[in-house]
Structures are given as C-alpha cells and as structure tokens.
C-alpha cells in the first residue's frame, strides 16, 4: 500500500502557500454550493484528507469528458484535485500501456479494495454480449462489474455514463446503457453533460474528499449543488424571455441584440446544469452567451429530444401532413356517417305517421 499522504502535506511539499490553499478552499466551498462560513471547515477537512485512489474507466465514449477536464487552466481547483488524488488507472492519460496498464488496474483494485473511487465515462454496450467495445479482450460490462465491486462509489462522468448519451440514442445499435443499469449496489453520482463542466467534476470530488460522503443528489442522481436549477432560471437572457423578445434566426436583429433563444430551440427551461453560473473556459462564457441555444446535453435522451433548433413548446414530429390526412379521413368517415344519417331520416319520412283529426279526437275522448 502506498504511504498515506494527506492533501495538506502534499500541497505544502509543492510549495502552495497557506493563503493560496485557503483561496482554493473558498473556491471549492462555493463550488459545492456551501456558505462561506464553511470555508474553515472545508480547509481543515481538505488539509487532513488522504489521497484517495481513483480508477477511471473509459468505455463507449469520445474522450470529450477527459478533454474537458484536462483542458482547464492551471492553477485551478481542478489541478489541485487531480494532483491530490491517486489516479491509478486512466487509459488515456496513463503512460503505461498493454499488459502493464491492465496490471496497474488490477493492482489498484486489489490494494484499495472497498476504498477507491470508480470514475466512468462512456456508456456500456450490452448487445451481443457486449462485443462492441472491449479493452484487452474484455468487454466493458465485465470490466465495469469487476471494478465496481470494490469501489466505494461510482462517479458517472458525462451524459453517456450517466444516461447513455449519444450511443444510447435512437436506434442504439450497440445496446448501450448507462452505468446505473449495470451497477445497482453502489452509490452512483451522475455528473452529466456533454461534456460536463470541469468544476462540477472536481466539486464532486472535493465534496467527497471534504466530507467523506457523496453529496445530495437529484432524482437523476446528479449533485443538487450543480444541477438544482435550470439553465433558463439562471440565464442572463431570461429578462428577454419574460418581455417576449426573441431572436427568430441566428443573424437577425434579435440575435445581435442578445435576445432570448427560445424560438431557436433553446432547451434551457428543461435543462439542469451549472453552465449559466459556473460557465466554461475558466468562467469566460457558455453556449447561450456565445449566441447558441442550449441543446440540453445534461439531460437524459437529449439527442432524441426532437431537434436542437426546434422550440421546446413545439412538437418533435412533422404534423402538417398528419393533420391533413386526418382531415381527409375525417371527411370520408363523416360523409359515410352523414349518408347514414340522411338515410335514417328518409326512412323515418317513409315511415311517417300522418296525424289526423280523428286520431286526435279519439285520444281526446280516451
């Protein structure tokens, strides 16, 4: 087993001052959506935290999630966290390859059994016994199950791992499933997004390091601290929505004036993520700020949501022909029913009973 080095010790070794450490702790506290009063507690906890072992498995994915994490600017909380964890297996980032790489994973699983965190990105193909994605001859299903067995918790990074993502989209040729469908006996934290915001991943790790437990989650297993509010609710363009000012195309006056992108298909109202508050590229911007509607990438089935450029309130299927066909069919059925009604009336006319004075007299007398 490796020597138990605390995070504080490690940072001091790297020459990080107490002042910088506290600043980073303040960032971490805010990232976890905790009040500033918690900063000293967070600092104390992080100082004493032991570098946990982390195994990162990448399955049916595009490496975008890893890119998102590694392209963040230094020195940041991300680097702090990644410097402070023992990333024992990550087949994109590790130097080792082939048998050595597999051996590293096996060793980490054995050494830290029951203690390590398992991070997964990518969905897992299950069709045809999972043959559509294998590593070192082993299917993703097999590898995930083995690694999950000894994990203290699983962090599903990215929408593919969280909800199946793009591989899961219709018609899902590989039978892809999210982690949660295969791992049912471990806590799973879904950090969705395509890709997820780096600070969200690190925020979750910071929370785990600080409190030794997983954060509060929403009904989709996402940390509430980051996924508690919709993009729409925190969007700086929201006032335009309320005023009814909308961009109608990507190059009209409304678009240039920065009006709401609802009509251009923005999925902000139904998308829960921290883009509008944490933003991207070190807090520079986020898609809506650069003029593109939210595509809802942190939500389940976002790829099958009926088109990125269709307003949320519209139907996802073309209906003009459909309604036309309904009218034509209706006219035909109606005509048949109408003819039947006409016939019924004609029959009634043929069966007409003539009222006579005699009859009225009889009735009157009766």
């Amino acid at each position: 087993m490796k020597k138990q080095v605390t995070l504080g010790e490690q940072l001091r070794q790297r020459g990080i001052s107490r002042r910088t450490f506290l600043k980073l702790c303040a960032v971490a506290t805010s990232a976890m959506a905790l009040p500033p009063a918690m900063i000293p507690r967070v600092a104390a906890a992080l100082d004493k935290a032991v570098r946990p072992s982390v195994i990162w498995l990448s399955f049916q994915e595009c490496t975008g999630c890893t890119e998102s994490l590694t392209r963040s600017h230094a020195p940041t909380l991300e680097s702090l966290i990644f410097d402070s964890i023992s990333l024992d297996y990550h087949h994109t980032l590790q130097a080792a390859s082939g048998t050595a790489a597999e051996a590293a994973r096996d060793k980490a699983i054995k050494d830290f059994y029951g203690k390590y965190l398992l991070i997964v990105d990518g969905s897992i193909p299950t069709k045809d016994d999972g043959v559509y994605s294998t590593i070192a001859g082993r299917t993703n299903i097999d590898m995930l199950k083995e690694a999950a067995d000894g994990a203290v918790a699983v962090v599903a990074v990215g929408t593919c791992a969280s909800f199946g993502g793009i591989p899961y989209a219709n018609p899902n040729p590989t039978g892809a499933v999210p982690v949660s469908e295969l791992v049912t006996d471990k806590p799973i934290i879904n950090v969705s997004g395509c890709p997820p915001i780096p600070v969200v991943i690190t925020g979750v790790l910071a929370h785990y390091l600080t409190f030794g437990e997983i954060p509060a989650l929403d009904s989709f297993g996402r940390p509430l601290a980051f996924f508690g509010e919709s993009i729409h609710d925190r969007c700086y363009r929201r006032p335009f929505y309320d005023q009814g000012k909308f961009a109608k195309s990507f190059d009209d006056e409304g678009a240039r004036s920065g009006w709401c992108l609802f009509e251009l298909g923005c999925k902000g109202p139904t998308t829960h993520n921290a883009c509008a508050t944490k933003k991207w590229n070190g807090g520079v911007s986020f898609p809506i700020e650069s003029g593109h509607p939210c595509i809802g990438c942190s939500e389940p089935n976002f790829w099958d949501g009926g088109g990125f450029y269709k307003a949320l309130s519209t139907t996802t299927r073309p209906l003009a022909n459909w309604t036309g066909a309904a009218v034509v069919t209706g006219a035909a059925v109606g005509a048949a029913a109408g003819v039947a009604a006409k016939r019924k009336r004609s029959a009634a006319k043929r069966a007409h009973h003539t009222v006579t004075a005699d009859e009225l007299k009889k009735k009157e007398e009766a």
Partner: protein
Amino acid sequence: MTSLENGINAFVEQIDTPIASFFNSCVHCGMCADACLFYTETGDPKYTPIHKLEPMRRVWKRNFTFWGKLAAMLGLSKPVTDAELEEWEPLIYDSCTLCGRCSMVCPVGNDITYMIRKAREGMVAAGHAPDGLKGATVRAVEIGSPMGVTWKTVQAQIKHAEQDTGLTIPVDVENAEYMVLMSSMEVVNFPEYMGAIARIFDQAGVSWTLCSDAIEATNSGIQIGSSDIAAQLVQRIVDGAEKLKVKTVISPECGHAYTAIRWEGANLIGRPYSFKVLHILEVLDELREQGRLQTEGMETAKLTFHDPCQLVRRGGVVEEPRRLLNMVASNFVEMPDAGVWNWCCGGGGGVSANERADELRLKVFSRKKAQLDAVGVETLVTACSNCRIMLEDGAEANNMDLQIVGMAETIAAHLPTKTSTTATEESSS
C-alpha cells in the same frame, strides 16, 4: 307502430342539420332561462327552454351521434319512454309560447324556438298533446275554426258590419287585389275588425274580398305541431286564394296565423304560392306610404303598443305598427324591451287554447304587467286578437285599468268623416 314509435319516428324526421348543430353547440350556460318568461316569473329551473327539448336531444344523440349510436348498440343508453314524453308534455306545450326570445339570446346561436316547434311534431305523433289543443285542432279540421265558428256565424258578422258601416262587404269576388282572412276571435270577440277593414279599404279605394271557403286564418296544426294538419288548413286558404285569383292574401291581426300562412305555409304544402301574403299591418303601412290611408285627429291619451311575438321576432313586422300609431296618436310611448325584445303576453303558441295552462299563463303575466306598469298607459294597442284576449284576461286578473284595442280599429276611428260619407253614398248607389 305504437304511438311512442310514431313519436320517435317523427323526432327523427324533424332532426335536420340546424338542429344537430344546435344540440352540438349547447353548453348549458342557462342564458335561455333568463330570456324565458316562464322561468323569470316562476324561478323554476325546469322551465329553462333548452331543457324542454331533452327528449328530442336524446333521440338526436341516439340516432345521429357516434357515441349515442355506440351506446345504443351496446345497450348502455335508454331510449326515450312514453312516460318521459308524458312528463315533458306540459313543458313543451304549457310553458312555451314559441315566443322566440330564447332564440335571440342564445350565445351559441341556437334557435330553440325552431326546435320546440319541431319537437311538437314528435309529441303530437306520440299522442302527447294537451286536450285543449287537440279539441281546437279537431274543430279547426272538422268545422273550419278552432272556436267552432261556421260560415253562418261569419255571415251574421258581415251583416252587422254592413249595417254599422253602411258598406258592402265583398264576398267571393274574383280577381280582387286582396283576400282578407280573419281569426275566429275576430269573428266572435272583436267584430269591430271587419268593419274597420271595410272602412279603411273603402277610403283607400282598395279592391278586396272575403272567401267563403277560406275565412279562417288561424292554424291549430302549427300550434299542436302537426304539419299534416297544418298543411290541410293552409291548403284551404291556398285553394280559396287561387280560386278567386287574388294577388295578395292578408293575414289578420293574429300572430301565429301570420307565421302559418306567411312563413310555414309554402313549406307545408310543398310549393311556393302564386300569391303574396301580407300582414294587415304591412298592408296598412303600404297604404300609408302611398298616401292612400288618410287620417284626421289624434288620440291624446297615453298609449303603447304590444308587439305580438310572431309578428316581431318571428315575423319581421317591426316598424309598421309604430309608423301607423304615430299617424293617429300624439302620446305614443314604448314599453321597455319593446320591438324584437318584447315579452310575450303568455298565451301564444297554443297556450291560450290549453286550459290546463291557464293558471301558469296568468302567473307569468306579471312580466307583461311590469312592462306596462313601467309606462303607465291608459290604452294598449296590439295587432293580435289572441294577445288581446290574453292581455284583457291578465289585466282583469290584476285589476289593471287598461283599454286594449286592435290596430285596425284604432286607425279606422281616425278616418276622415268626409270620406266615410262618400263611402256611404257609394255603397247606397
């Protein structure tokens, strides 16, 4: 077929596109109740006009709607029963005068009166018409008048009128301009009508005639709701008019007679007329416009005009009586809601012939009384003998000091005396 089957069959016969549309459109807003004097004066929700059509609505639903047909096929809905028709009989006959106010207010545009008129076809075919109306109808068919008036009675009337006016009453004159019809009530209760017409026409130099085969203008068939009988009665008039080759038939001071001859008649006999039909008010107004109707002197007493429902709302005779009254009255005032929004006397649509409805009819007269009290007149002019009797009845029951007169006699009272002298000379010559 049983009577019930005959009735249901008649309902089916009567249901046309407008009725289907009306039943489809009803949202049960209840506004028709507020337009109906039977509801406003009793406060009883069962008098809501659209409710009176419940049996017909059920026949429509069962026979002309998808769900209704399906439910009927699966035995989930009960057909209308004879007991139900019996229960609805007083609603359709006693508490509806076919006045047409509900048809004017319905926000979705349902012509409820049109439907009730047609619903009565089913009721009478099923044998569920009031005895009073049945009796009147039988008399109309067999004797020629719902009140049992015979040509002999009319002849006696003619004699009186000739004596009173010194004019000859033309009978069975061919090629006359006008053929004058009368209502039995005018013959029995208001004999002054015949004399008034004779004097006015004489002064205006109008060629006219009575027809011994077709004097009766009223049509019990319309009121009881039997097109078979109504057609029979209209046919007499058509035959009379065609036999005498008159240009125009004049409907008397009667509301439903106008509806019967002017609007329903051609449809009842199944062909357009070869003559015109005008109400006496229209004729008088035409004469006034042509300058052929001259009057002198003015009534100074405060008077008002009661619009018969079948003339205004259901007939389109609105401005004529006003122009005529303004000729002879200096203090003509309008009641609130006068004109197309006027309230019914309570006895239209066959209610007056239905003794069972008498009590209810007098109760709802409070609406008319309120209207009259609002203007406080001494004289009430109207142009319908039935309204006139109902108004007299109501006034008496409510101890109202009111003189109720017909339009023609009011005009006739103001004919220049000189002309009438000439007329006397002419008739004696």
